[in-house]
């Protein structure tokens, strides 16, 4: 069952090789044994998960099984799940039992999947290392002294260490792709608007997008139809039919035009990372793809633009956490002002507060035009660069991150260095495009390297095809950390 594909698990359940309860118990056992080391999950509730599993088994017995019926999925703790503790990695919500289900959770529930637990994350998804979580950092299964990336680090770790067959993530500036790269798994951030944000706790509303994380492109293709889909409760949800994301997986890649933006191969990126990317490009050429050099001239601006727009939206989105209706309320207050200021100062961690302050500042009187409005204009410039590039190619490729997983604490005291590590992922969110990371090598220290694939709007099926064909020809996606194998749980 360990690192088995979703198709294999689905077949195992269908053939009666094991039940959903057994499958769920298997992963719960792995979580029980390994989570104390990895800190991948914030909340595990065996009783709830197993109840769902036995309901799934009953459904299957009645002949009403769907592809994901009975398969346990780890849910990023940013998705509200009814009656589950939903913390968003924050002290602010450390006691928050959600009274409702996010759209994504509803969709998984109606697909018959089992909620395996809520995964650790950077507080309110603000971070690139999972070190800002109130519940402590997540460890990278390849080297537990290193970060798994963030903000969906718990989900990435869970898949990489075999604590879950697949997981959900969210990506505002790279939060699915970068941790996928750091842990050697696959992650897809869909086109903005494909996955409903209803019940997905907001960080930066115009950039946030949920997506699947798993062992292979094939697995992601199975998860996509469940996560994507119109939701009237999200005004930015796109009203279009759910696609069959598996339809193009088998297509040969001959004729595929891969654009390599020259800005993705700039100085500051680790030579080992660049080397691995170049190797994978060679592999793609073998598969019949042609290479086009393109340019995204304004890409360097994406980091400053993002660190104006995302904090601005966040500062406003996080105003609802005031200690009045739910969430942390300070014990120290006399006046309303003290109630607000102390509850928020105690409930939020340093990085979240930093971003709230940046956001409040760039929106404040006299600075709006110089920062916020200017950033919105540059956002259009950055998006236009992609449109221009896609006139010459089908997909773009480059590194997901300039480096492999860094050490815990290495960048946590230097926000600017941390922000710059998102350089290759952020522009995709600003444009609202789909982006993906798949494993394409290991560095000398044995740490995974991620290849980023960026598609045009709504080209997820094509991107999955591109990734899948590579995964048929190579085995990077099957490499797993040697430290957390089957022996541990036997």
């Amino acid at each position: 069952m360990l690192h088995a594909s979703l198709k294999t698990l689905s077949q195992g359940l269908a053939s009666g090789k094991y039940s959903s309860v057994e499958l769920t118990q298997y992963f719960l056992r792995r979580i029980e044994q390994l989570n104390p080391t990895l800190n991948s999950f914030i909340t595990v509730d065996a009783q709830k998960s197993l109840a769902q599993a036995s309901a799934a088994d009953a459904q299957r017995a009645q002949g009403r099984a769907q592809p994901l019926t009975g398969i346990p999925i780890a849910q990023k703790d940013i998705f509200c799940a009814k009656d589950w503790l939903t913390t968003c990695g924050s002290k602010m919500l450390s006691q928050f039992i959600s009274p409702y289900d996010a759209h994504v959770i509803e969709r998984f529930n109606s697909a018959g999947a089992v909620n395996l637990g809520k995964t650790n994350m950077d507080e309110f998804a603000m971070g690139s290392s999972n070190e800002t979580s109130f519940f402590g950092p997540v460890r990278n299964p390849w080297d537990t002294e290193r970060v798994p990336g963030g903000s969906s680090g718990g989900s990435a770790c869970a898949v990489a260490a075999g604590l879950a067959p697949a997981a959900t993530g969210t990506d505002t500036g790279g939060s699915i792709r970068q941790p996928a790269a750091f842990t050697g798994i696959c992650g897809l951030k869909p086109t903005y608007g494909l996955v409903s944000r209803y019940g997905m706790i907001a960080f930066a509303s115009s950039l946030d997008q949920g997506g699947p994380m798993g062992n292979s492109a094939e697995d992601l293709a199975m998860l996509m139809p469940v996560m994507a889909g119109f939701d009237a409760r999200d005004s930015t949800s796109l009203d279009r039919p759910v696609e069959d994301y598996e339809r193009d997986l088998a297509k040969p890649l001959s004729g595929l035009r891969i654009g390599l933006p020259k800005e993705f191969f700039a100085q500051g990126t680790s030579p080992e990372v660049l080397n691995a990317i170049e190797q994978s490009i060679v592999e793609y050429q073998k598969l019949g793809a042609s290479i086009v050099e393109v340019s995204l001239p304004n890409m360097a601006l994406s980091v400053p633009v993002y660190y104006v727009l995302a904090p601005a939206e966040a500062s406003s989105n996080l105003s609802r956490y005031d200690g009045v209706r739910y969430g942390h309320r300070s014990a120290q207050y006399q006046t309303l002002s003290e109630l607000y200021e102390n509850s928020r100062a105690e409930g939020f961690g340093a990085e979240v507060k930093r971003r709230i302050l940046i956001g409040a500042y760039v929106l404040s009187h006299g600075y709006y035009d110089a920062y916020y409005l200017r950033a919105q204009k540059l956002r259009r410039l950055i998006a236009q660069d992609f449109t221009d590039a896609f006139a010459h190619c089908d997909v773009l490729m480059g590194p997901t991150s300039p480096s492999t997983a860094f050490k815990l604490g290495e960048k946590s005291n230097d926000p600017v260095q941390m922000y710059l590590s998102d350089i290759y992922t952020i522009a995709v969110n600003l444009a609202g495009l789909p982006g993906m990371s798949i494993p394409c090598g290991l560095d000398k220290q044995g740490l995974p390297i991620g290849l980023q694939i960026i598609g045009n709007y709504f080209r997820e099926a094509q991107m999955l095809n591109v990734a899948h064909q590579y995964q048929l020809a190579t085995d990077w996606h099957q490499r797993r950390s040697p430290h957390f194998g089957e022996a541990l749980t036997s």
Partner: protein
Amino acid sequence: MALTLDEVKQVARLARLAINEEEALATQTQLGHIFNLISQMQAIDVSQIEPMSHAQDLSQRLRDDVVSEVDQRERFQSIAPEVHSGLYLVPKVIE
């Protein structure tokens, strides 16, 4: 451009975040670095560009005017810090 200490305190007040002198100083330094990074934006002429608020150039969908929500007060208030007679309580506010 650098923020003054007063600006840091002002914006903390605006965001309702209690901040002591030491934190304000540390924040001032960090925000200084971050705004250095952000200042790269100032190099570009943006006068001819339309601002972009959304990833898609679409317009707002409208919902029919129908009531479909039911009373869930009990459920919602079970997670509230302080309620009385169905009201959320806060320290006395003087208008």
